[in-house]
């Protein structure tokens, strides 16, 4: 066999390692990120942080009395606060999972050497 096929085999092996690293770190990050966005979007259908934020200072249910404005502000602030906490918890959980995922090969390698 000539050098061309040997060179091809060596470059393919190196490429395979590169692809593994890309799959494990870059592509899986994209997958985790997509999952996080989808989950937050789904949560937003209930918690509606974006919409609530846009209407923060508006009266509750078009009640344009002072009570309506105060109640609107209180309820929306509460909603934003609760939503923000929930979103943060979800995001933190997803990032933690990714961290575990990303660390697994390192962990296995270190353990195999140690």
């Amino acid at each position, binding site marked *: *066999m*000539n050098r*061309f*096929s040997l060179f*091809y*085999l060596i470059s*393919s*092996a190196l*490429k*395979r390692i590169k*692809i*593994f690293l890309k*799959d*494990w770190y870059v592509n899986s990050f994209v997958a985790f990120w997509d999952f996080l966005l989808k989950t937050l*979007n*789904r949560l*937003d*259908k*209930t918690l*509606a942080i974006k*919409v*609530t934020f*846009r*209407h923060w200072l*508006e*009266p*509750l*249910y*078009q009640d344009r009395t002072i009570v309506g404005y105060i109640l*609107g502000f209180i*309820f*929306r602030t509460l909603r934003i606060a609760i939503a923000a906490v929930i979103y943060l918890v979800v995001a933190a959980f997803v990032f933690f999972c990714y961290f575990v995922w990303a660390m*697994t*090969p390192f962990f*296995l*390698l270190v*353990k*195999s*050497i*140690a």
Partner: protein
Amino acid sequence: MANVGNKEQFFYSDPRLEMTFGERVFVRIVVALFWMVLTAITLLLIFMRESNLRFLGYFFALFILDRLLNLNRPEKLFDKKIEKKILADPNLKLNLLPYCEFSLRKNIESAFDKTILQGGNFYLRLLEDFLADKKFQEIFKKLEINPEEIESAINDLLNKSIQKISKKELVKIVNDLVVAAYFLKDRNYLQNKHIFSAIFYVQNNDIERLKNYFQFNDKDIQLASVFSEFRAKLGLIRSIPTQRRGFVKLFKYRRQRIMNRAWTARPTPTLDNFSTDLTNLARLEKIGFLIGHEQELKQVINILSRATHNNVLLVGEPSSGIDSIVRHIAYLIIKDEVPEELFDKRLVMLSIDELVSGCDPAALSEKLKKIVSEVLIADNVILYIPEIYNLFRTSGQNYMQAAEILLPMLSRNDFQVIGSTTPNIFKKELEPKSDFLATFDIVRVLEISEEEAILFLIYTSLILEKQYKVSISYRAIKNVVQIAHRYFRDKLLPQSADDLLKEVVADVRNLGQKIVTGDDIIRVSQQKINIPLKGVSKEEAKKLLNLEDLIHERLIDQEEAVKEVSKALREYRAGLSRKGGPIASFLFAGPTGVGKTELAKILAKIQFGSEQNMIRFDMSQYQDKKSIFDFVGTPEGDKSGALTEAVRQKPYSLILLDEFEKAYPDLLNIFLSVFDDGRLTDNFGRVIDFTNTIIIATSNAHSNLIKQRIEEGVSIEEIAAEVKKKLTEYLPPELINRFSDIIVFKPLTPDDLIKITHLLLNDVAETLKEEKGIELTFDDSAVEQLVKIGYDPVFGARPLRNAISDNISELLAEKILKGELLSGSRPEIKYENGKFEVVLG
């Protein structure tokens, strides 16, 4: 994903194709051995007692697992970044190899090896490999092609040509194929199905022969592949729904809400009583299915998203899909896939009929005021008012009330409204109301394209297959769309095609068949419209080849005219006529009563199944400027055009324009576009299709000249050329030149008249035989006398029919009523002693 760039920017270079066959085999063996050895080592390590070696085993397992999970995945995917790069740099050269799924690369390599070793056509080798896969067999089945038959055809072609080509040439062929596949891709990477479709797009003699033999084209393959893939995927993921709306993507979250998410709205209890909340239906997945109308949808959403002047009036025919567009907007609102301005809104369909029925004006006024107030306070309602013109209907006092209260609000843009109306009513009733129209932006909803209708019908067919337990081929879907679009114009696409498909499926099921084919669609359609639709059958071919004889059974002499008309019809039925214009357009010139109209009637019967499919216009009645409006409709829309409406109703017909030269000159000019493109736009902006019509214009101009030249013995071709020149006195030359042919009809000779009289008398005899069982014959004396009475130098043979009716039919009727002619009798009609007599034999 758009397939940006031009073909010079792409290439396919696989180092494995650069190797010799031996090297490729070596590489394959080494790679296979590597994975086998690695797997064995991994297993071994995992079961070791040494914990650090076990962890190494787990690490290798991750590596193998990643490979297994992404076995067929391409190394790279097309994304926005690479698209931008392609667009920004025209000199960019992109290798498509990393964007191809692994099995595709393997298939190319395999066909490449076979072609190198055994010779033959690379495309056929690749196709042969693809045909081993059930997925690709299914595509051919959907096209009503037996995979075994096409496989055997491929083998035959391969056996005929085993010529070997150089590796360099082969690499170029592979390159061209993959580049062609890039432009067909519907994913962000290249798959086997794209290469499969691309085989039929590249120029290759063997592939062309296959396409011609099995009668399919590149587009068919592409759509049939979408069809079978879609079916397979749907069958795999979830059960096929029973209604189209079931295709709307499922939501995991289905919470019903009365109030909006921003807590700004108010309930609208009165409005809810007379309306349907479309956003709520969308949330329940009951509405939202839409195919096509992308342009209109984009326009409507843009208008609704404006800060001011944000009302839309959708103008379209009842089956044009207006409702589907509006319902799809509700679906997009629910999915939050709308601009911020429409976020969290409610789309509510108000029924004017329900609102006004059963209540007195005072109660109606009260209800309306309440509704308007609710909508204003809620501040998140978009009202959809179908058939908005009902607001102006004055038939009932209640309608007036509705208009009076709602219109000022609409004018002030107090709340958003989507209205709908038909083009006809828009033109007639709404266009004059400029104040009302000023509050709306008009969006015209047009019929969807045939390709979109095919996609729509693919969804419908899946439902019908499930309901009726039959299989529907792609060819059936293609035929149903094409036939419905051409011949069933009562409704627009896709509704017309949908109705026809359902009818055919029911028919096929009654016959006990399991597959609905393209031929079934043609068969049922032919039964419905009585028009030959399929490629010429043997029997029909015989008829077409002897068309002259067939016409002469009803028309005497006029050899040249019959020859020309027959030629045009044969060319059309053989698929050789010019595309774009009508089937044919003739100008029949000649004296009155020589058979011009008769030939038109015969043609209508032969080509369109019945004389009823002849639309006749006496053009001498269209002599003033206003005639144009009579023909194509008034700009105000209060009157539709006689010609456009007739062709819209009967798109497959013969149009006879008697005394063409007498029409108003500007009116004649509208035929320029009809003869050229086979299209004419009516007063409602609808494009009327003339491509399935035969147009015959007749003219008596220069009849004396024709007569004179015939007597001088001038040939009919020369007379036709002279008449053509002379006709420029009456008709613009550009119009004369657009006729397929100008046919001169000769004056009738005495012999011709006798033959015509015989023909007409035979009709009477046949009727009598059928109805009463009486066998009637005619003496020569009677025929000669009828010719004398029935021939008029000015009107030709036209009075003959009346002469027969007055002298023969009347006499026979009298005898029958008196009981002198009974069933089984064999009377003869003679002319004796200055009168016609019935002599019993």
